[in-house]
């Protein structure tokens, strides 16, 4: 029981407001959504032109639905990108995500294998970067924090490296 008391006396891991991601990340997500929608629309058009026999009367009847669906998707994308955030503490980092299904991931620095900053072409266009924290938990459990401004990402990486907790230094 004594161990329980000791641990509960420590700071609460879910207190504190998460830092939101950059505003530009929301724009990036919206752009990506519209690109996907455009690709889907173009694919549908190509199918129609190649095979004119495909009966599109149903689609023509319901095409006005496209606009509200895109609007709804936009609302969701904006909410989900704004729901993401991170908390940097002395010994660990937490990542918050999810609109309806909320997930908080905590990564202690002592269990980190290495850190990476990756930037895709669209991210470079927006001046953004993704910070990736790799642990021995496996590839699907790599903590990726998207939507950071490049200097911000580099600063975060620096602070994590300074924390001297990295696994290989033990």
């Amino acid at each position, binding site marked *: 029981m004594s161990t329980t008391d000791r*641990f509960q006396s420590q700071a609460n891991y879910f207190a504190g407001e998460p830092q939101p991601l950059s505003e530009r990340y929301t724009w990036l997500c919206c752009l990506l959504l519209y690109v996907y929608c455009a690709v889907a629309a173009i694919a549908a058009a190509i199918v129609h032109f190649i095979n004119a026999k495909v009966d599109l009367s149903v689609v023509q009847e319901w095409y006005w639905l496209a606009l509200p669906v895109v609007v709804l998707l936009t609302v969701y994308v904006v909410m989900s990108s704004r729901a993401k955030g991170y908390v940097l503490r002395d010994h660990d980092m937490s990542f918050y995500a999810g609109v309806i299904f909320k997930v908080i991931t905590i990564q202690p620095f002592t269990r980190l294998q290495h850190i990476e900053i990756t930037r895709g072409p669209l991210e470079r266009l927006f001046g953004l970067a993704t910070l990736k924290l790799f642990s021995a938990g496996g590839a699907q459990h790599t903590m990726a924090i998207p939507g950071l401004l490049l200097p911000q990402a580099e600063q975060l990486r620096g602070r994590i490296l300074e924390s001297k907790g990295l696994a290989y230094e033990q």
Partner: protein
Amino acid sequence: MSSDWQRLSPLAIVYFAVRGFIQLLNTYAVLIAGVIALTQMGLSAGQVVIYLLAVLMLLVLGSSLYYLNFAYVQEPARFLIREGIFSKKRTEVPFSKIQNTTLKQPFYYRPFNLVVLNMDSAGSSNKEVALAALSREKAEAIQRSIQCFHQGVGHEPTVEDSEPSASADVERAPILTRSTFDVVLHGLAHNRAWFILAVAAPLLSRMDQPLERLFNSVGLDVAQLVEHASVIVLGGLVLLVFAGAAFLLSVFSVAGAILALYDLKLFYSNGSYHRTSGLLNRYEIQMKRSRVQTLRYHQNWLDLIANRLTMVLEPFSVAAVDNSQSMMQKILLPSVTHAQFCNIARHVYPDFDFDEVAIHRVSALYLLRGLGFAVLPAMLAAAALAAGIALWQWLAPLLSGLVVLAAVFLRWRRLGVGMHSNHVVVRSGLVGQQYFCFAAHKVQQVKFKQSLLLKRRGLATLELVLASRALQVPLIDETLAADIAGRCVEASTLSEQSWM
């Protein structure tokens, strides 16, 4: 230590030939099967023998050349290995990268008391480093020097390496031995026959052609039987066929268990566990105590009847880290009793008492969720599949719904999590049960999941990511989840102990 290149004993040729043969079979299995099928007709026995001899000659020639080109150096902190007939390759294996060493004694080495030393290295996991045909003393000396190197890195170099006699005494007394009865029990309880039965039953309708041929070959006329025999006789016949298949699979499973696990002994010395076993090939697996990531308590429904369980000491899985196929050797202990599990668990984690753990069950909301996300879809799918078939269109959804509901209920009954002195225990299972026990400081990452609905009810889903596996406990009290999550993160941060 001399740094001259050393050759293996010439008997290593046998090992290389066998390994080459197995590799050949694995890579060209389809090709070989095709060639055999093509040439099956026009070949006399003599020709077959000639071809086989030719293959054998080639194998021996290849392995001899490979043997001549294989050399290694043992330096104070690393191995250098030179190999390859046409394309030469040089491998460097630093001792610091060696996670695990395994001694294996194939049956053809037993008369000479030679062994094969396998080294699992952290970096190059898909490449197996093996030194064949070493004398046992030599292999154990190499193991000792690797161990000493590791201990030297951990602490200052101490006198530990100069007292092998003391450790030898410890090795005399095994922590656990398994009798042949235990091994047979394990083979019976963990065979796939039951699974095959369950899967094969629905395929029965497609089996009539091959079955008919089988019966005809035995001298039974199926058509006549079907006409004259009653349903009961036919059903009995089908049952008999399946029972025969199940029996055959059980025999295979038991034979496999005896081959791999016969005369199993678990030792502890110098901070590591050693397991020796095997009927023809002797295997020896080693794992450092500090490298044990999870203790697995696995009891399937047959174990439940026999009141035994399988205990597994899991190291971190290379597969999880770099996606390669090679896995570190687990130490599996078959058919142990609950008391034995508790004892060994206390040996691995000295301040952990398995019987003291209070498991917190999962909320009953899990049943409701299962109703919506598992039972209903299963019923809908069954209804769609059986639509229009008289009687079945009602029976199929009902039956599948009941089966899935039973599964959800059984799962809910098993799911749970508990803590005892900085060790976490996660329970799951369906009919049987399994527990995963691990030290809180081995946790790599923690995930705390909560939907808006769960938040209102004060529930949360907790996922603990380890280097060996990720464990998830759904729908537990949110303060409990937060407490366990916090304690794991705290232990990981505070602990001076490495996770590895």
